[in-house]
């Protein structure tokens, strides 16, 4: 395995880039593994990586029905942030931001994490009070946050419409300076390459079609390439988690929705940060290539159709035109959707599934990309030790029975 470095890039540049080896090996499915992970997106690959790195478990297969990172890992808007309200969520998502901060070095793969900051605007005096409450909560939880007035928002992001006669005039906002964007494909590929180097088998184009159970315990999976037995199985299938649960004979508190995103033609630099304007239901950042990466809320209809549609496109883009009228005539290049797994409290589910030997990491809904390192880290911990990490304990499936929900949908001011 070749390490990536500046020197190596220079050397390959002189040799016409002909000496780069394959980033990860191609494997045939073996009949048995210690751990089988269902789903080769970011969370699945990260789980395999941390199982090998933190727990020394390397006899692991990641089984992906399509190609690596072809689901939500390749379909999100690449925002990484931890501006949540509750202490449990702050612990979880800030651990993820901290892992992201060291990830390029850890994986020896440039994931291009750019901590350009994220601003969530406030549009009335009562919203300013809620924004101040949010800043205070974040700081109490040990997360960086700054309270901005209208002038500071205008200086930070001059493209925003800050006129007083707009429908929802900007009064100020909340800035998280450590938030930003990353390169989503690089996160999948970096975890895949690093896991492969530690001995993990990555199997693509192999669909899991059933769960093997013996005496009520999950002992493996049935795939399109035959049966595989496993000591334990982890499901990281995001929007398709309910389908996996059905194979194992239980139901999850998850509803699958399409979440759409858009990217524009490349422009010269026009945005400095990630900006979310809640009343318009739209957020936007600019990629290194210059394209505006635009996102909004969930579709209105539960769906497994991985494609965009018009009603939400109209809502999100009209929101952008109101936020930044100068961008109203920018042309779109692409428009797509991923299927996200939404829980009643908008918080994830990490831990035992209820079926012995089967663990789940799902329910991240609209915010799975930012949580890839922590999702993998915590699922690996639960699967390797059989018990919860302190950070994952509040997100056990049992919270829906005890009623101790972590209701972020109402508290954090996120768009969804």
């Amino acid at each position, binding site marked *: 395995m070749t390490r990536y470095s500046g020197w190596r890039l220079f050397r390959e540049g002189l040799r016409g880039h002909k000496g780069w080896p394959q980033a990860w090996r191609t494997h045939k499915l073996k009949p048995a593994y210690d751990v089988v992970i269902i789903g080769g997106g970011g969370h699945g690959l990260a789980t395999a990586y941390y199982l090998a790195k933190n727990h020394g478990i390397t006899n692991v297969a990641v089984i992906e029905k399509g190609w690596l990172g072809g689901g939500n890992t390749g379909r999100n808007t690449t925002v990484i942030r931890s501006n949540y309200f509750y202490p449990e969520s702050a612990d979880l998502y800030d651990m993820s931001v901290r892992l992201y901060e060291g990830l390029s070095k850890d994986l020896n793969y440039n994931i291009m994490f750019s901590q350009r900051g994220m601003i969530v605007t406030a549009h009335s005096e009562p919203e300013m009070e809620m924004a101040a409450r949010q800043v205070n909560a974040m700081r109490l939880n040990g997360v960086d946050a700054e309270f901005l007035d209208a002038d500071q928002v205008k200086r930070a992001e001059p493209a925003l419409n800050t006129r007083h006669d707009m429908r929802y005039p900007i009064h100020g906002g909340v800035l998280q300076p450590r938030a930003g964007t990353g390169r989503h494909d690089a996160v999948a590929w970096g975890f895949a390459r690093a896991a492969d180097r530690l001995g993990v088998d990555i199997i693509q184009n192999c669909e899991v079609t059933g769960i093997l159970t013996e005496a009520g315990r999950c002992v493996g999976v049935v795939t399109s390439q035959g049966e595989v037995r496993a000591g334990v199985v982890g499901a990281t299938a995001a929007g398709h988690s309910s389908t996996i649960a059905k194979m194992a004979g239980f*139901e*999850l508190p998850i509803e699958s929705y399409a979440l759409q995103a858009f990217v524009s033609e490349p422009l010269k630099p026009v945005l400095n940060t990630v900006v979310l304007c809640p009343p318009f239901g739209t957020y936007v950042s600019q990629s290194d290539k210059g394209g505006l990466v635009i996102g909004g809320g969930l579709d209105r209809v*539960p*769906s497994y159709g991985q494609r965009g549609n018009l009603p939400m496109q109209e809502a999100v883009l009209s929101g952008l035109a109101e936020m930044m009228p100068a961008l109203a005539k920018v042309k779109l290049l692409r428009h797509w959707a991923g299927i996200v797994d939404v829980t009643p409290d908008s918080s994830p589910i990490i831990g035992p599934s209820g079926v012995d030997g089967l663990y789940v990491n799902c329910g991240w809904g609209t915010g799975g990309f930012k949580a890839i390192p922590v999702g993998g880290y915590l699922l690996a911990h639960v699967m390797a030790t059989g018990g919860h990490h302190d950070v994952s304990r509040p997100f056990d499936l049992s919270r*829906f029975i005890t009623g101790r929900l972590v209701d972020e949908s109402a508290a954090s001011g996120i768009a969804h």
Partner: protein
Amino acid sequence: MQLFPCPFCGLRDEREFLFLAEAGKVRPDTTQNISDEDWARYLHAIRNDKGAVREVWMHLTCGEVFVLERDSVTMEVVRAIPLRKEVA
């Protein structure tokens, strides 16, 4: 925009409709003692089927509540079934 059928109004713009819940859930008998697990299952467990689904929808503009059968992958609408009882 896609057109959805309302049993009362006929085909209308999809944005006039609101998804309420999956059809077919039965509320546990609350006069009896119900276990936390059963109550949680009633509150939160969702079939979330991929493919053919049966759901309760509302047509917001006229207030009609009805069962909609559709496909959650292709988004094809099969039929709308009224919940109103015909007056004899």
